[in-house]
C-alpha cells in the first residue's frame, strides 16, 4: 500500500482547491492536491462569464464599492446567506482580482472612448474615461447594481485556471491527477486524510495529512439535466457526509440556469443576456419584460428560470422532440461581438446544435446549474463536526450564496474563499502537530477494499449501477426542480427511499479492473442517493419560497419561521437524513427586505428580533 504524507491534502484541484493549496505552499507547508482529471480540466475552466469584484473602473461600474457588492449578494441570496461571510467576500474580491492580474490572468481592460452596448435588445452608448485606460474592466451580469464582472473574453474560468495551475507548478505543489478520494480517514473527531483510488491502476492508496480540504465542486450530476461536467458527481460531499458527523448545509438550495441548450444541457453564458441577448417564446416575442419590467432578462437566475417555466406552462413554449423550450436571441449583437466576446457561445452553437447564432435562435431551457447546498463550514472554512477538515468553493456551504447565487459570484468565490480559507488553514497548521492512529488507517482501507470486493463479486446483489442512477436522476427532475410542492415532494422522498434500497444491492457487470468507470460510479451511488434524499426532505420541510427553492403551495418568503439554514446529517446506518436548523447569520448588516425583483410576498420576521441582530458599519 502506497502511503503519502503532507501537511495539507487538498481533494479537488479546481480553482478553489488550487488557491487553497497556493496559500499554504507559499508559507512553506507541504501540500498535495488530488484531482480526478488533470487540474486544468476542472469544471472551473468551463466558467465563461467572469468574476464579480467592485473595482469600479469601467463607465457603467462607476461609483461601485464593496458595500454595494455586499448588498447585491445578500439580496441575491434572498437573505439566506451568512452576512459576515458575504462581507468578507465582497471586501476581498478586488484584492484577489488584482492578485490574479499579477500572477498572469489576461483580464480585459478599459479602452477609453465611445462604445456601444445592448440592453433588452436596445442599443445604448457609453464613454470610458481616459484616466482609466488599461485598468481591469467589467461587464454586466444579472442581479447586480453596477457592471462588476471582470472577464477575459468568454473564457474567464479557463484563463484563471491556467494561471492558478501555473502558480502551483511554480511553487512545486504536487498535483496528482486521476486520483479519487473514496473515503475520509477519521476517528469521529479528527480528520487524518483520505483513502484514494488511483484511476490509472485501480489500486488503493493512503494520503495522511494534518489538514484536509475538500474542494470538489458541485453535485449537479445527480440531476439528469445539468450544465455540470461529468466529474461533478458529489464525490467530495459524499465522503464528508458519510462520516455521520458532517452536515450538508441547505440541501434544498439548488440553482437552475435559464439557458441550458436543448438537448445536451450545455450552458450558454449569462453574458449573452448581460450583453443584451433576449428570451423569446414560440411566437418569437419577448416575455421577460412583461413579468419583470425593470430587470427583464437580467433578473436573477431563479427568477428568470421560474418565469420561463411559467411561460412554457402558459402554452408559449416551443415544442420539440426533447420536450418544450424557449429561444435565446443574440442575432442583433452582430458578428464582431459574437466572434470575440461570445466566441464560446458561437462554438457551442456550431458544434452541438449545428446553428449560426448570428442568424438563428438558440433553443434553451432551465437546467440544473449550481449547488448552493454543500459541506457546511464556519466562516473560516472549517467543516462542522471534524477537526482538521476544511472545504471551499462550490463544494462548501460557506455560506455567501444562501438560496440563490448571483452570476459571477461563484467563480469569484473560488479564488476569494480559497485565499481566505487557505489563510485560515495556514493559521491552523502553524504549530499544529497530530498523531495518526494506524488502527484507524488500516480499518478505513479494509472497509473500502471490502466494498470494492463486494461490488465486483456481486455479493450484495445484482442491481445495475446505471439503471439505479437513472432512477435517482429522474426522481429529482420530477419532484425537486424549478417548482416544488408538497405532494410531489412526498412522492419524491418515497421513490428515493426505494432507490436507496436498490443502491445498496448493486453489483458490477464488468471486471472492475484498472481505470474502470463502472466501479467508480458504483462506489458513490449510495452516497448520491443520500444527497438526493437530503434535497427532497429538506425541500419538503421548508414550507416557504426563498430564492431557488420555490414552493407552489407556499409562495411567500416566510422570514417569521424560515429565516434559517437547514443542516442535513446522515447518522450511520440511517435510512433518512436527520434535519437540524441554525440561524442564517450571526448578525444583519442588511435587515431582511424586498429583493427588488421576482415579486412574491413576504411574511415578516419579528421586528424587535431583527433589530436586536442588526449592526451598523
Amino acid at each position, binding site marked *: 500500500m502506497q502511503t503519502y504524507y503532507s501537511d495539507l491534502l487538498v481533494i479537488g484541484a479546481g480553482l478553489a482547491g488550487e488557491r487553497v493549496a497556493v496559500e499554504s505552499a507559499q508559507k512553506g507547508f507541504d501540500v498535495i492536491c488530488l484531482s480526478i*482529471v*488533470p487540474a*486544468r*480540466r*476542472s*469544471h472551473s*475552466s*468551463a466558467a465563461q462569464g467572469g468574476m464579480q469584484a467592485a473595482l469600479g473602473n469601467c463607465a457603467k461600474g462607476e461609483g461601485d464599492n464593496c458595500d454595494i457588492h455586499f448588498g447585491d449578494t445578500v439580496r441575491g441570496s434572498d437573505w439566506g446567506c451568512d452576512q459576515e461571510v458575504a462581507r468578507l467576500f465582497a471586501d476581498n474580491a478586488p*484584492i484577489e*482580482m*488584482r*492578485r490574479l*492580474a*499579477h*500572477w*498572469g490572468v*489576461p*483580464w*480585459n*481592460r*478599459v479602452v477609453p472612448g465611445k462604445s456601444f452596448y445592448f440592453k433588452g435588445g436596445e442599443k445604448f452608448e457609453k464613454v470610458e474615461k481616459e484616466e482609466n485606460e*488599461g*485598468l481591469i*474592466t467589467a461587464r454586466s451580469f444579472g442581479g447586480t447594481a453596477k457592471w462588476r464582472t471582470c472577464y*477575459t*473574453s468568454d*473564457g474567464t474560468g*479557463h*484563463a484563471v485556471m491556467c494561471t492558478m*495551475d*501555473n*502558480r502551483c*507548478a*511554480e511553487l512545486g505543489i504536487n498535483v496528482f491527477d*486521476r486520483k479519487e478520494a473514496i473515503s475520509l480517514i477519521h476517528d469521529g473527531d479528527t480528520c487524518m486524510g483520505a483513502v484514494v483510488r488511483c484511476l*490509472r*491502476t*485501480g489500486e488503493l492508496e493512503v494520503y495522511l495529512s494534518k489538514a484536509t480540504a475538500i474542494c470538489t465542486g458541485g453535485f449537479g450530476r445527480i440531476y439528469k439535466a445539468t450544465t455540470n*461536467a*461529468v*466529474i461533478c458527481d458529489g464525490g467530495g460531499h459524499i465522503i464528508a457526509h458519510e462520516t455521520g458527523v458532517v452536515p450538508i448545509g441547505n440541501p434544498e438550495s439548488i440553482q437552475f440556469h435559464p439557458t441550458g441548450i436543448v438537448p*445536451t444541457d*450545455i450552458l450558454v453564458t449569462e453574458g449573452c443576456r448581460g450583453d443584451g441577448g433576449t428570451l423569446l417564446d414560440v411566437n418569437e416575442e419577448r416575455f421577460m419584460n412583461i413579468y419583470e419590467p425593470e430587470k427583464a432578462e437580467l433578473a436573477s437566475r431563479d427568477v428568470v428560470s421560474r418565469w420561463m417555466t411559467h411561460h412554457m406552462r402558459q402554452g408559449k413554449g416551443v415544442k420539440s422532440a426533447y420536450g418544450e423550450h424557449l429561444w435565446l436571441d443574440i442575432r442583433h449583437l452582430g458578428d464582431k461581438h459574437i466572434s*470575440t466576446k461570445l466566441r*464560446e457561445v458561437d*462554438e*457551442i452553437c456550431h*458544434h*452541438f*446544435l449545428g446553428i449560426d447564432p448570428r442568424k438563428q435562435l438558440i433553443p434553451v431551457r432551465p437546467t440544473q446549474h449550481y449547488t448552493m447546498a454543500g459541506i457546511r463550514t464556519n466562516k473560516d472554512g472549517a467543516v462542522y463536526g471534524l477537526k482538521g477538515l476544511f472545504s471551499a468553493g462550490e463544494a462548501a456551504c460557506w455560506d455567501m450564496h444562501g438560496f440563490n447565487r448571483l452570476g459571477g459570484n461563484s467563480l469569484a468565490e473560488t479564488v476569494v474563499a480559497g485565499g481566505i480559507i487557505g489563510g485560515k488553514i495556514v493559521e491552523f497548521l502553524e504549530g499544529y502537530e497530530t498523531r495518526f492512529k494506524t488502527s484507524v488507517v488500516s480499518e478505513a482501507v479494509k472497509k473500502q477494499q471490502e466494498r470494492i470486493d463486494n461490488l465486483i463479486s456481486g455479493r450484495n446483489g445484482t442491481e445495475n449501477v*446505471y439503471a439505479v442512477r437513472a432512477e435517482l436522476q429522474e426522481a429529482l427532475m420530477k419532484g425537486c426542480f424549478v417548482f416544488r410542492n408538497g405532494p410531489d415532494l412526498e412522492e419524491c422522498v418515497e421513490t428515493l427511499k426505494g432507490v436507496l434500497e436498490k443502491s445498496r444491492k448493486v453489483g458490477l*457487470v*464488468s*471486471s472492475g*479492473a*484498472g*481505470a*474502470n*468507470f*463502472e466501479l467508480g460510479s458504483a462506489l458513490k451511488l449510495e452516497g448520491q442517493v443520500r444527497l438526493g434524499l437530503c434535497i427532497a426532505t429538506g425541500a419538503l420541510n421548508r414550507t416557504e419560497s426563498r430564492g431557488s427553492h420555490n414552493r407552489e403551495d407556499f409562495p411567500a418568503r416566510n422570514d417569521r419561521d424560515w429565516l434559517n439554514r437547514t443542516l442535513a446529517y446522515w447518522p450511520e446506518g440511517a435510512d433518512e437524513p436527520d434535519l437540524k436548523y441554525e440561524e442564517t447569520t450571526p448578525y444583519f448588516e442588511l435587515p431582511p427586505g424586498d429583493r427588488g425583483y421576482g415579486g412574491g410576498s413576504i411574511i415578516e420576521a419579528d421586528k424587535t428580533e431583527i433589530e436586536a441582530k442588526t449592526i451598523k458599519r
Partner: protein
Amino acid sequence: MSRNLEFEIFRYNPQEKDSVPHMQKFILDETVNMTLFIALNRLREEQDPGLIFDFCCRAGICGACAMVVNGRPRLACQTKTKDLPDKITLLPLPVFKLIGDLSVDTGVWFREMYQSTESWIHTKKVFDPKAQEERMDNDVAEQIYELERCIECGCCVSACGTARMRDDFLGAAALNRIARFVVDPRDQRSDKDYFEIIGNDEGIFGCMGLLACEDVCPKNLPLQNQLGFLRRKMGITAIKEIFGK
C-alpha cells in the same frame, strides 16, 4: 436518420491479466443530434460497462475526450455522428501513455511540459494588495488570451511527425505556451532565456513544419504563426549569440 452505426473500438486494459490489444465491434442505432459523447456513454451503459474512455465537460472546453476518430485526432464530445460514415473507428491518441481502451495519460505529459517551459510569469515585482492593478493595453490582453485558449487535449502532439519520432520533442502546445509568455509584458524573461528552453532540436528547430498541429487543433489556435514567429525570433537570437550582437 435511423442508421445503424458500426463502431470499431480499440480495446486493451493493461490492468487486466488476460487482456490483449484488439479491435472490438459494436452496433448502435443513431439518434438525432448524436455526438460521440452520447454514443460512447450509451455503449458503456447498455453494452459494455468495462469500456474505458474520458469525458469531462462534454462541451469542448476541457480537452479530456481527444481520440483518433476515423484516422484523425479530435474531440469526441464535439464530433457529431451525422458527419461521419456508417463505420466509425476509434483509437486512443498516440504519443501519450495508454491507460486503457481509448483513455491516455495527457496529465503527466503536460505537467512535465509546464516544468520544462517554466510555464509561469517570471517577474521580480512583488504583489501589493493595497495598490491599484498595473495597467495593460486591452489589445495585448486579448492577444495573450488568444494563445492561452489551449485546452491541452493533446491532438496537436499526437498528430505531430516529430513527436511521433522523438520522445523529447516539446510539441506545438509547448511552443504555443512559450509564445504566450513572450507576448506578455509582465514576463521579464529575455529572448536569450527563451532560447535556453526552446532553441534546440527538442524545441523550435525540431519542428519539420508539417503543420498537422494546426490542422487538428479543435480550438483553431494559430499554431503555424506561432511556430514561424518563434523560429524567426530564436534564429535571430542564435545569430546574435554567435556574433556577440
